[in-house]
């Protein structure tokens, strides 16, 4: 962290991957190598990514801290800053402030099964945990990923999903919404909650991580409850409008908690005590 809380690190875009229509992943390296060497973060944390002249946008750090030398973010082009980010080319310099926020408590999950349930553009916050778990595979028991998007084109990290499927030590189920399949689609067809129910992963000794659009979360939680997951063992992330990322500008709070400081990772048990202000 620089002495000026609001001054970002300079990052060079090393690689741009087009994930889906309007969705890109940037692989970023620190322009100042020393800053890069001293930088560390943990899965779950986010950053504020700047286009100088336009502003900042908030995304999770979508790569694992076990992978040194770079960080990655995935974003959809939607507003002023993400549109400017989408115009950047490999070699461009952008800003990064972070890491901010709390973490997925991976050390607490040693020896447990991990179940990842994600939809659409919400796979990035879980991808850092997935990569982290795969890089430390011996620490965890069964890994299951259930991921769906509206259409085949909308699936992000297509290449990686393929790689994970081939590994043999992680169960990967991908699905698209009914009508979103292509003729050569080999995965499931159905909404994520339904696919989850059909897969019926065990809840015994399992932590569930769920990220997705509000409607998907709303329909997934009852399925998890039915499968025997308790609120303390279900983790999710919240998003809110952010500016400072450090609990000062006052806008990202949900009741008395700030998504940037007390989150973005919350258990369902915590979410159940929070007012519906997100």
């Amino acid at each position, binding site marked *: 962290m620089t002495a000026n*809380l*609001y001054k970002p690190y300079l990052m060079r875009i090393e690689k741009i991957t087009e994930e889906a229509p309007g969705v890109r992943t940037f692989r970023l390296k620190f322009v100042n190598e020393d800053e890069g060497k001293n930088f560390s973060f943990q899965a779950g944390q986010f950053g504020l990514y700047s286009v*100088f*002249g336009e*502003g900042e946008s908030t995304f999770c750090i979508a790569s694992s801290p076990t992978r040194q030398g770079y960080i990655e973010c995935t974003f959809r082009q939607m507003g002023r800053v993400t549109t400017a980010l989408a115009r950047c080319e490999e070699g461009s310099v952008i800003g990064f402030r972070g890491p901010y926020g709390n973490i997925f408590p991976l050390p607490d999950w040693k020896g447990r099964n991990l179940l990842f349930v994600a939809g659409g553009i919400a796979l990035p916050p879980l991808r850092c945990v997935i990569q982290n778990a795969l890089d430390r595979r011996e620490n965890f028991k069964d890994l299951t990923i259930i991921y769906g998007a509206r259409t085949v084109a909308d699936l992000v990290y297509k290449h990686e999903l393929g790689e994970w499927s081939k590994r043999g030590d992680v169960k990967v189920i991908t699905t698209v919404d009914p009508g979103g399949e292509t003729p050569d689609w080999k995965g499931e067809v159905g909404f994520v909650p339904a696919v989850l129910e059909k897969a019926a992963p065990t809840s015994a000794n399992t932590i569930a991580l769920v990220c997705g659009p509000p409607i998907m979360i709303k329909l997934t939680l009852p399925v998890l409850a039915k499968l025997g997951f308790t609120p303390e063992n279900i983790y999710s992330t919240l998003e809110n*409008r952010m500016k*400072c990322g450090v609990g000062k*500008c*006052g806008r990202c709070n949900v009741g008395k908690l700030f998504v940037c400081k007390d989150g973005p990772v919350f258990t369902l048990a915590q979410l159940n005590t929070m*007012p519906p202000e997100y």
Partner: protein
Amino acid sequence: MAIDKKLLKKESLDQLFSRLKSSGRSILAPVNRGEQIFFEQVNSPGEMAKDYIQTTLSAKGAVFPRCEELFSYRFEAQEVKLEDRKSEPKPTVIFGLRPCDAASFAVLNSVFTWDYQDELFKSRLEKTAVIGLSCKKADEYCFCASVGGGPGETQGSDILLTELSSGNYLAEIVTDKGRDLAALAPELFGPAPAEDKEKNLAAVAKQFELKTLNAKLSQLFDKNQLWVEQSLRCLGCGACAFVCPACVCFDLQDEAGRKGGVRLRCWDSCGFSLFTLHTSGHNPRSVQSQRWRQRLMHKFAYMPERQNFVGCVGCGRCSRLCPADMNLIEHLKEIAENRE
């Protein structure tokens, strides 16, 4: 640190100001501008507003400016060069700050030093000294006594002046910073007067118990009808937040040309619908009643719980200046006295 009590004669103010100025400090004091009173740079006490209860805007701009450069950037081919702001804050004395406003700097500080240290704010605060002025008069909008303050409270002032019946001042030297200021003109600070400070202070009654308010508020988040009724006449402007000495919510904005630009921090208000609007169009606080609730909860429930500070000093500006006459104190009393 014990408070040193001294006497400062009214006619000494000219000398005091000129010593402060020659020590390289600038002086901010209340100045009349038409019907309004603003804190502005002054050279002599004669320029100051007299006989008023409270200024129009607060003095928070001295430590938390309306618009502040965070850093600048230059574009050089594909590279970007960042530069910290060039100017350092000048040592400043705020003269004539009311005890409520003096207490507000601690509230601002509690936010800017919460875990992450905001060095920009801290450097300004460090270079700012306060010579406060007790209140001889109050109006129906003042409620400092209800939020742990009072018309003669020393908290937040480096030196607190209380005007005595003679027209001279009891000068309470509260902090080391205050001692440093007094040391610039030690001969102006005579032995403490015998006159009782209390009889020169306005009477400000306590209108509600903070603890009761706090306890009631924490039960009321879901009572939508209450928030709708209370905020029906609220117009959703930012006047209350911007005149408030304890409001600290801000926005970050980039302003740039082809060669480079700056990142600015500026005041913002939770009363604006834009405040929490997501790019997707989703807004967790989409109607004014939710934003009114946020204002009250943030200041009187969340801040006390998370930061041990009430986000309000009872200066009453929001109520004096609200175009819709929202009158905060009425709403707070309604909640504190709620029998449900």
